């Protein structure tokens, strides 16, 4: 058996294994498409939780705390109903008040009816339900706190404990209110009204809007909004389901708004997922389709035969399949953005095909291009292999997809193509004579330019330096670059955040080993923050469940005041007594059994880091009522930064910060990659040729980055990712020119490759997703530059 047959059989065997295994992974194995942008960010800390037995409060537990406290928010949908705005051109008539209220009443009835219709329609959908909020009655709350009545005193009550007159005033103020259900419910339990005062303040702080006809009413900018919450009962990030459910809900929302003439806005991760995935699918299909059309036309034009086209399609299909198999082998999910970037595989794979097609006429076994193809592949593999180990899942997936895909493509081109040609299984692949003529013209131009290559490189270097001096590039690492949600959805999200007061809301996450330690930590943090910023409103479970230590202290203060007869003036007014009971602390487990347990689940919960270790986590919601300021001041922020297990929660900032770190990592990676390229080039082609090749590659990359910066206004991690791809392509071009000079076959193959890659990446420049757009622009520019510069580094000898 000849060597070529043995190689062919070996190839077929591995192909069979890949196909079988790949089908198994695709069909039998449990995997999914992932569209959650945040899943692109690293989870490495949570994977090392088991190793952090002595570090319960490492980064892992913070991520788990965030997930425990806020993870369910991604399954929520908020709908806000409001009356339609009156048209501005209508004069506002001053109607009699009874008519005004009648109109108001009719309009409100419309809102209530709209809500009822919404509830009915949503009830027919399987994957979503109305969020049920159990609001305990005031009597239930009062009865629950009764055994602990002397453990709870508000700040204002505490400040007046030594002043009988002030205490009497406090009691009178409570008693003379027109309607105070807390006084009515607790007067018999605690006549000194400390409990009524405490509960009133606590509930007031935690109250979010007012319940009205099954909705929660908020007022914002003189307009009333009635909010309803829905909960998803399925995984909100399954692409197909999220699109279907989002579409169904949007149909219902529109119908309700139209039927009852109300304004209806909504927010929820579901809709962002649906819109982003639709956009990504549209881009994949559009860009992929257009890229394919462009390449088909190019191939037909050059070869005037269907064979190269069909073989190219087959190679692309195989490469894509290899890429899928590679990703599913190492990951159990495939992110949608991976597919968007993986469109670039088309451009690179077609390179191998072109080199094979143009060389097969003169070298039927492709012996002349094996070395440059292999060198190019290994160089690319070296560059991408560093990405495979990146903690950023997107980069890892893209790298794996590309590497496996290139492997599949290369093996086909080197093994199968010569076999098919030799056995005349395909029509002879020949380049059309007109194309050869054009290439010869191009070669003449390149040869002319090569005479001035010293000046070309010098001018390029000066231009680059000048550009860097005039406008130093800066990086934008905002995670929102990955977002392609439409503006109307972002505006609705913002409006709902404004209405509910969450727009200017800061969150602090606290962690502790025990529930009591956490309650005490909460009290310490709240006390410190308010001491520096009195206008802060802080919502937390601390308002309803002080620590046992605090309860004991309050009880002792009440007891002492009782001994000193401080309450007599007030109690005598009512003719009542209120003996202080023995201390009985209300602890967390008991609180969980009470009527306010649903509230605790929102703000305070245990988290199991692993099967042996549990911590308690809670969060504080902080708003600042002063119009001049927004959020915590620097002094408070600095203090929080020094506190162990107290962290500001800012998802966008955290992820952007992480993105920034990875951008820096990629920058370092690029330095290493360029260094490796330099070593390879010097090793292969010696100093002078090595320098020329290196300059061509470096100048192309730098030029692409600088012009991208001019066009976009900033650079980001995806511009750097593009440089990695430019590097891979540039290496191929430089190596081919170094190995083969400006032969017709080489120039044609490189030209075809450059054209096809520029077409593919040029389309990505039109993506709505800023990340994809950045990538496309930089790669396209880089290819243009390397196409011009690569021929200049040939060995003139």
């Amino acid at each position, binding site marked *: 058996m000849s060597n070529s047959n043995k190689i062919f059989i070996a190839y077929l065997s591995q192909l069979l294994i890949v196909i079988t295994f790949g089908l198994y992974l695709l069909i039998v194995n449990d995997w999914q498409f992932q569209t959650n942008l945040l899943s692109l960010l690293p989870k490495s800390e949570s994977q090392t939780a088991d190793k952090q037995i002595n570090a319960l409060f490492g980064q892992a537990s913070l991520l788990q705390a965030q997930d425990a406290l806020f993870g369910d928010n991604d399954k929520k949908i908020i709908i806000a109903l409001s009356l339609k705005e009156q048209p501005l051109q209508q004069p506002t008539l001053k109607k009699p008040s009874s008519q005004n209220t009648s109109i108001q009443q009719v309009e409100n*009835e419309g809102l209530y009816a709209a809500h009822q219709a919404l509830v009915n329609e949503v009830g027919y959908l399987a994957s979503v339900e109305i969020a049920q909020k159990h609001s305990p009655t005031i*009597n239930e709350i009062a009865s629950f706190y009764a055994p602990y009545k002397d453990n709870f005193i508000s700040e204002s009550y505490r400040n007046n404990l030594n002043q009988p007159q002030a205490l009497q005033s406090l009691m009178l103020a409570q*008693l003379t*209110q027109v309607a105070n259900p807390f006084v009515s419910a607790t007067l018999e339990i605690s006549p000194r009204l400390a409990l009524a005062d405490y509960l009133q303040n606590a509930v007031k702080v935690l109250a979010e809007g007012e319940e009205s*006809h099954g909705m929660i009413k908020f007022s914002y900018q003189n307009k009333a909004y009635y909010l309803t919450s829905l909960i998803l009962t399925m995984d909100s990030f399954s692409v197909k389901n999220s699109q279907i459910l989002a579409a169904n809900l949007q149909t219902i929302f529109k119908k309700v708004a139209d039927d009852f003439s109300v304004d209806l806005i909504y927010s929820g991760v579901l809709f962002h997922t649906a819109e982003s995935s639709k956009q990504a699918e549209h881009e994949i299909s559009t860009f992929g389709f257009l890229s394919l059309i462009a390449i088909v036309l190019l191939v037909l034009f050059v070869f005037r035969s269907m064979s190269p086209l069909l073989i190219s399609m087959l190679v692309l299909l195989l490469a894509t399949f290899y890429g899928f198999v590679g990703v599913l082998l190492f990951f159990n999910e495939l992110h949608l953005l991976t597919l968007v970037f993986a469109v670039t595989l088309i451009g690179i794979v077609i390179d191998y095909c072109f080199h094979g097609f143009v060389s097969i006429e003169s070298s039927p076994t492709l012996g002349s291009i094996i070395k440059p193809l292999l060198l190019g592949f290994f160089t690319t593999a070296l560059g991408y292999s560093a990405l495979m180990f990146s903690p950023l899942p997107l980069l890892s997936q893209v790298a794996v997809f590309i590497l496996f895909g290139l492997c599949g493509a290369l093996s086909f081109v080197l093994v199968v193509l010569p076999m098919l040609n030799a056995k005349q299984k395909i029509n002879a692949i020949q380049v059309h004579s007109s194309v050869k003529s054009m290439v010869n013209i191009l070669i003449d131009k390149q040869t002319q330019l090569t005479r001035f290559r010293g000046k070309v490189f010098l001018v390029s270097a000066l231009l680059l330096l000048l550009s860097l001096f005039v406008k130093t590039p800066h990086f934008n690492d905002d995670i929102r670059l990955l977002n392609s949600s439409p503006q109307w959805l972002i505006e609705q999200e913002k409006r709902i955040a404004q209405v509910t007061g969450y727009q200017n809301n800061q969150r602090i996450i606290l962690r502790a080993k025990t529930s009591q330690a956490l309650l005490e930590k909460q009290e310490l943090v709240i006390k410190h923050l308010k001491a520096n910023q009195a206008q802060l409103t802080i919502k937390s479970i601390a308002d309803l469940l002080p620590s046992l230590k605090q309860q004991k202290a309050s009880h002792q203060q009440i007891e002492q005041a009782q001994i000193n007869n401080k309450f007599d003036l007030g109690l005598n007014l009512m003719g009542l007594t209120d003996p202080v009971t023995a201390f009985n602390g209300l602890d967390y487990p008991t609180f969980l059994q009470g009527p306010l347990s649903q509230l605790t689940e929102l703000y305070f919960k245990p988290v199991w880091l692993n099967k042996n270790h549990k911590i308690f986590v809670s969060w504080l919601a902080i708003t600042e009522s002063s119009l001049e300021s927004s959020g915590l001041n620097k002094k408070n922020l600095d203090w929080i930064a020094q506190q162990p297990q107290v962290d500001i929660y800012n998802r966008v900032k955290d992820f952007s910060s992480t993105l920034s770190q990875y951008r820096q990592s990629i920058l370092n990676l690029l330095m290493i990659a360029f260094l490796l390229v330099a070593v390879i080039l010097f090793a292969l082609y010696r100093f002078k040729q090595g320098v020329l090749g290196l300059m061509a590659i470096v100048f192309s990359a730098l030029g692409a980055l600088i012009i991208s910066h001019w066009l976009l206004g900033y650079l980001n991690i995806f511009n750097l990712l593009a440089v990695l791809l430019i590097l891979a392509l540039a290496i191929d071009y430089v190596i081919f020119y170094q190995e083969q000079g400006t032969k017709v076959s080489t120039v044609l193959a490189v030209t075809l490759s450059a054209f096809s890659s520029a077409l593919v990446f040029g389309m990505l420049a039109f993506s709505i997703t800023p990340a994809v757009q950045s990538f496309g622009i930089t790669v396209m520019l880089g290819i243009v530059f390397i196409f011009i510069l690569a021929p200049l580094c040939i060995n003139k000898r």
Partner: protein
Amino acid sequence: MFKLPKVILKLMLLGILLFNCSLVMAEVDNSRSLFKTVSIASGQFSQQKYFKILAKPILSSGEFYFDQQLGFLWQTNQPIYSASLLAKGQLYLIDHHRQKQLITGGVTIANILINAVAGDINALASDFTVIEESQIQSNSKERCLKLMPKESNLAQIFSFIRLCANTHKEISQIILFEPSGNRTEITMQLNKEQYLPEDVRVQFQ
């Protein structure tokens, strides 16, 4: 035995139902006509709060101002100062130290009080079932309505409210009955105004 045709029986039944409905409607319309709705007014009030556990009621008095377009101020002067201010859809409580704080969750009750004081039965009808009560005292010329809350969250606070109007059809008394058995009796002297005093209007800004 003379048998009426079924059709005629059905028609008679329908007629009776319609007649009853019209009676009820007329009754509600009549109820609303017992009270004159006022859009801008001020006045004085005296309040007695009866708690089951207390032998005597808690007495207080003060003044009130409202303008349907601007807001509502309910100010207790005796025995201790406090005020509830509803302006721009927000409710504020001012304590005896004159410290003002925003109250979340009290706007509904404040609106109920405003509508009650203003005699706006139409507005109250969205939250309450309105029933006309027979005259309580044979010598009194006051007419009263009983308001039963429709929603459970209001029913926690009021089991029902009694509104009484004087011979001029102005609200003269509001009695709030609580599920606990406590009640609040408010007697009012209402003065219709064209404009509220400037120092009051400023508070609504």
